């Protein structure tokens, strides 16, 4: 059969192109535009070439925020993934406990970011916060407003509280899809609890775990609202992650050029990481 060529068909994708243009391409181009210019207000711009990019890549502030962010992502992954697997393994597989657990697990995910931040901001305060007050009453000197370590602990515990559920639910979905026959066969083969986990449960969870790691890494790498509400990036700059730094630069100092350059670099990093994950996952699928 001959294919019919009709270039008018391009009009069918026009609405989508317009939408994408207004939602993504045009704003992005504006950022590109800012990143190579300097302005002192009044809509007067001066050509700045790659000055902002060079400055950014030599700025300690940027690299420190980046390192902080990577450490943060690494820590929360190291906690949330094993913890999520552990909880998922111990959740009931049938009976009335299933809906109860699922609802409990889904609750933190339904709470808006800034509300989570506010909850923990109040919860951790050592004058009126339930957690902060009693931790101090037990003799620990805990004050997330002044102590960088306490601030980190608070932000990490908050993230674990908020997002471990996601890992749990994904792992749980992987686990319940394993037919009973696998466990029965394992019993007959005399497999230990560890062997069941290692050779049945983990392989079946591998795919969802990959997705969980991807989502949690991306989200934590772009985290903004919760630490901003709790610590505002402080004390000092100790919890200033990339996005908080970006907002400080763009809206606090109103340095549009450097902020635009930073946005682009940030965007490219995220894009690169997404690509790496995507490649890993598709290769993994192809291998199957």
């Amino acid at each position: 059969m001959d294919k019919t060529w009709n270039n008018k068909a391009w009009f069918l994708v026009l609405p989508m192109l317009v939408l994408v243009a207004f939602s993504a391409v045009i704003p992005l181009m504006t950022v590109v535009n800012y990143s190579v210019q300097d302005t002192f207000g009044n809509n007067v711009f001066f050509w700045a070439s790659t000055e902002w990019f060079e400055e950014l890549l030599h700025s300690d502030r940027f690299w420190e925020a980046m390192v902080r962010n990577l450490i943060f992502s690494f820590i929360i992954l190291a906690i949330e993934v094993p913890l999520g697997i552990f909880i998922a393994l111990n959740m009931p597989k049938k009976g009335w406990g299933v809906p109860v657990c699922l609802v409990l697990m889904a609750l933190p995910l339904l709470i808006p970011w800034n509300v989570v931040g506010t909850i923990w901001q109040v919860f951790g305060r050592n004058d009126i916060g339930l957690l902060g007050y009693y931790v101090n009453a037990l003799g620990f000197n805990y004050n997330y407003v002044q102590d960088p370590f306490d601030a980190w602990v608070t932000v990490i515990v908050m993230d674990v509280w908020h997002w471990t559920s996601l890992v749990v639910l994904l792992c749980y979905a992987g686990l319940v899809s394993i037919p009973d026959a696998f466990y029965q066969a394992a019993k007959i083969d005399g497999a230990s609890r560890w062997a069941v986990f290692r050779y049945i449960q983990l392989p079946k969870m591998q795919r969802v775990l990959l997705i969980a790691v991807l989502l949690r890494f991306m989200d934590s790498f772009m985290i903004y609202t919760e630490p901003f509400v709790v610590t505002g990036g402080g004390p000092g700059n100790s919890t200033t992650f990339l996005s908080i730094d970006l907002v400080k630069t763009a809206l606090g100092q109103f340095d549009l050029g450097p902020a635009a350059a930073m946005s682009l670099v940030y965007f490219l990093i995220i894009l690169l990481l997404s690509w790496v994950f995507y490649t890993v996952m598709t290769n993994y699928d192809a291998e199957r």
Partner: protein
Amino acid sequence: MARIEVNHIRHSYLPNPQKDSDFALKEVHHTFEDGGAYALLGPSGCGKTTLLNIISGLLHPSHGRLLFNGRDVTNLSTQERNIAQVFQFPVIYDTMTVYDNLAFPLRNRRVPEADVDRKVRETLDMIDLASMANRKARRLTADQKQKISLGRGLVRSDVNAILFDEPLTVIDPHMKWVLRSQLKQLHRRFGYTMVYVTHDQTEALTFADRVVVMYDGEIVQIGTPAELFERPRHTFVGYFIGSPGMNVLPVSLDGRTAKLGAQRIELPGVPKAEAGAVELGIRPEYVRLGREGMAVQVSKVEDVGRHKVVRANLEGREIAAVIGEDDEVPAEPKVRFNPAGINIYADSWRVEIGA
């Protein structure tokens, strides 16, 4: 290998069974002889998988004892009973190679690696997968995977029995034949005690020396394929085995004759039937369609290949008869029952026909 005694076993999935209907397995009392090939045949929900899981130890019965070679194993775990079981869907360990899959049950039992290697290679030869030893198991076809499941049972030389739970359900038809004959061959060569659960009568009849027919949580008949065909002990066996199933007609008895409406059917002897609803059972293969006998109205002729199945109406009852591929249905069709194929049932259970 072991002789398996199922001693008055009852099982219920409910915590407090009261009535008979609460039991998935009403009462089973039977001995599977050492080295026998048995099929448990029955419709879905008849309790055959429950019985199998009780033998393997995945379930513990509510009542009764289970003995292997005279030793009580009722409270032993699956592992301690040393049983192999092949499930409906192939169970393989995805991340392992074929070799490692077979080695898994041995390594779990801390068998020295040299023995593992010897046994695994032997088993690979037995199931014809030697050439694939180092392939990842998840890339094999369904029938190869099912062979691995079987192999994991065969690899342990000391297994007491090999149990099969509808193992060929997901296998392509042409491979079913191959696998089934390989199973028979293994059985003949090594004399394993095998119990094979299925709802497919062809599978049961070709695989087993003795077929255990189950219905509604009970064993209704145990016999060779020929016995099940010629002398079904229960009308259910008559219906369930054979295609089409046995014709069962309500009759009243009068000495050597059975009365069906206006028709009188000569019996080979006097049935020893006491009270109860009496029925006459005759397989379509023993119904002769011709110009003599009882008048019938033919409603349908089904050509099933090697023969034809004639559906007809006899005294208001639906009956089936089998005729040859080239036979014609006569203009005024009549049927006669071959006395050799007549069985009499009282309350669904077969009664002996005396001289």
